[in-house]
């Protein structure tokens, strides 16, 4: 049987691929699954920082591919939760350091020992994307509710379809219900109308995402912020559970009310 190998991709940069990878990996691990998050963004290593494991890296997967170390030596175990591992990439190499076949072989080596292999894909549609996607069975496409991001997601979905990846599912990040209500932002229906794939998660804009990234502590380690809840919901949906959607209208209204209370010194 082996692991489900899922590439997390977007086309456009800065939409939340790495943050989503880290949080979904933690959420799956907290549900008892054995998970490895693989940073495939060679030369622009970030997943280790978001996961707070930067200081523990000795080897990376380029070392594994080049035979400088064993796979087990390059894997970094996250001590905060059982069964979560990071396979980091090299910061001092470039995307052409690996071939699609080598990437596929690496995923095959990981597959027997894990329930999930999550591949954090670099932005773009060139070699880095192709390497990451080559080893995957499924794909999660991340977009924000902006036209350029949606257009790039559409491009990536077309490429994933032509590579035979299935299922390809969508996560909309940095969603703001009030802006949608005021017709200042694409709605989820607008986005789904263009992309025509199944929605797996709708993550609200949430300041705690930035704070957690800077602290190296993924939200799903225990916070109850709306984004943390939705990442946990995404993990549950990946496992086939039926999870209700967050009421983002209520959350944003509460956020405004809390802001007003803060101004007037109620807390």
């Amino acid at each position, binding site marked *: 049987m082996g692991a489900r190998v899922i590439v997390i991709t977007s086309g456009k940069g800065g939409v939340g691929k790495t943050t989503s990878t880290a949080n979904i990996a933690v959420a799956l691990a907290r549900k008892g699954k054995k998970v490895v998050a693989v940073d495939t963004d060679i030369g622009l290593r970030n997943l280790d920082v978001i996961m707070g494991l930067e200081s523990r890296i000795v080897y990376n997967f380029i070392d594994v591919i080049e035979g400088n170390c064993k796979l087990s030596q390059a894997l970094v175990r996250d001590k905060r939760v059982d069964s979560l591992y990071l396979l980091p990439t090299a910061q001092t190499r470039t995307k052409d350091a690996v071939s699609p076949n080598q990437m596929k072989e690496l995923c095959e080596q990981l597959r027997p020992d894990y329930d999930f292999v999550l591949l954090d894909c670099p932005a773009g*549609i060139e070699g880095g994307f192709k390497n990451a996607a080559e080893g995957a069975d499924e794909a999660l496409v991340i977009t924000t509710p902006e*036209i350029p991001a949606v*257009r*790039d997601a*559409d*491009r990536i*979905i*077309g*490429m994933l*379809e032509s590579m035979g990846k299935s299922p390809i599912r969508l996560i909309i990040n940095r969603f703001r219900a009030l802006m949608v209500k005021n017709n200042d932002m694409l709605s989820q229906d607008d986005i789904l109308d*263009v992309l*025509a794939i199944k929605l797996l998660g709708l993550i609200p804009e949430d300041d705690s995402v930035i704070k957690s990234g800077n602290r190296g502590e993924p939200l799903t380690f225990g916070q109850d912020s709306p984004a943390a809840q939705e990442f946990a919901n995404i993990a549950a949906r990946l496992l086939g559970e039926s999870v209700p959607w967050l009421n983002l209208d209520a959350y944003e209204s509460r956020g405004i009310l809390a802001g007003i209370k803060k101004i007037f010194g109620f807390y």
Partner: protein
Amino acid sequence: MQQESSGRASVQLKGTNFGLRVIFSEDLDDDVLIEEFKAVPEQAYALPVGRGLVLDFRSRPCSGELAGRILSGVIWPRGLDVLAWITSDAESRARLAQAGFKIGEPGHAHAHENLADAGPLIVNNSLRSGQRKEYSGDVVLVGHLNNGAEIFAGGSVSVLGKLKGLVHAGRGGTEGIYVMAASFEPQQLRVGDKLCNQFDTSMRWWKKPVIITLEDDNLFFRNWKAEPKSEML
């Protein structure tokens, strides 16, 4: 091939994808023009002439008498075919059209007739951003043409979904060419050598089912339901 007179080209010949374009100087006397045209050697028409000639008078008027002299003095004796008579002089255009000559940009009708044999290309899925279909004949897309996707067709293009991407129809000739969309939402449209990018959400036809045709060098929009109303853009 160029014939020089007083240091300026009086009759210029340019090879194009349909044959030869003959461009006449705008300030030559009719007699001189005929003589210069006659002086073009026979060999000039041998290689690139293809399907025929386009006679381009630019802003120069073309009288009935001049047209007759060109036909009897050069075209008929040499067995040439004139595809179109081009002049920006409105009276001349009306006169030539009334006499049954083809005016406006070259009639690529021959090319389009040939394409009919190939049958249309039917695409049974939406085209996503970055995907492109190129075909020498008509294209029918049963799905959406997303923003960033492209269809380049020698013939007409029908999009039975949302047209948000780029369509270039009539690359093989514009006669009888149309673009049809169930919902018209593009940033740009190309028909033959015409390009139009003046589309926005305030446009009357935005997100409506339309048929677009090229008539007298203008794009005409009509409701797909074939209502009698039309609008020139």
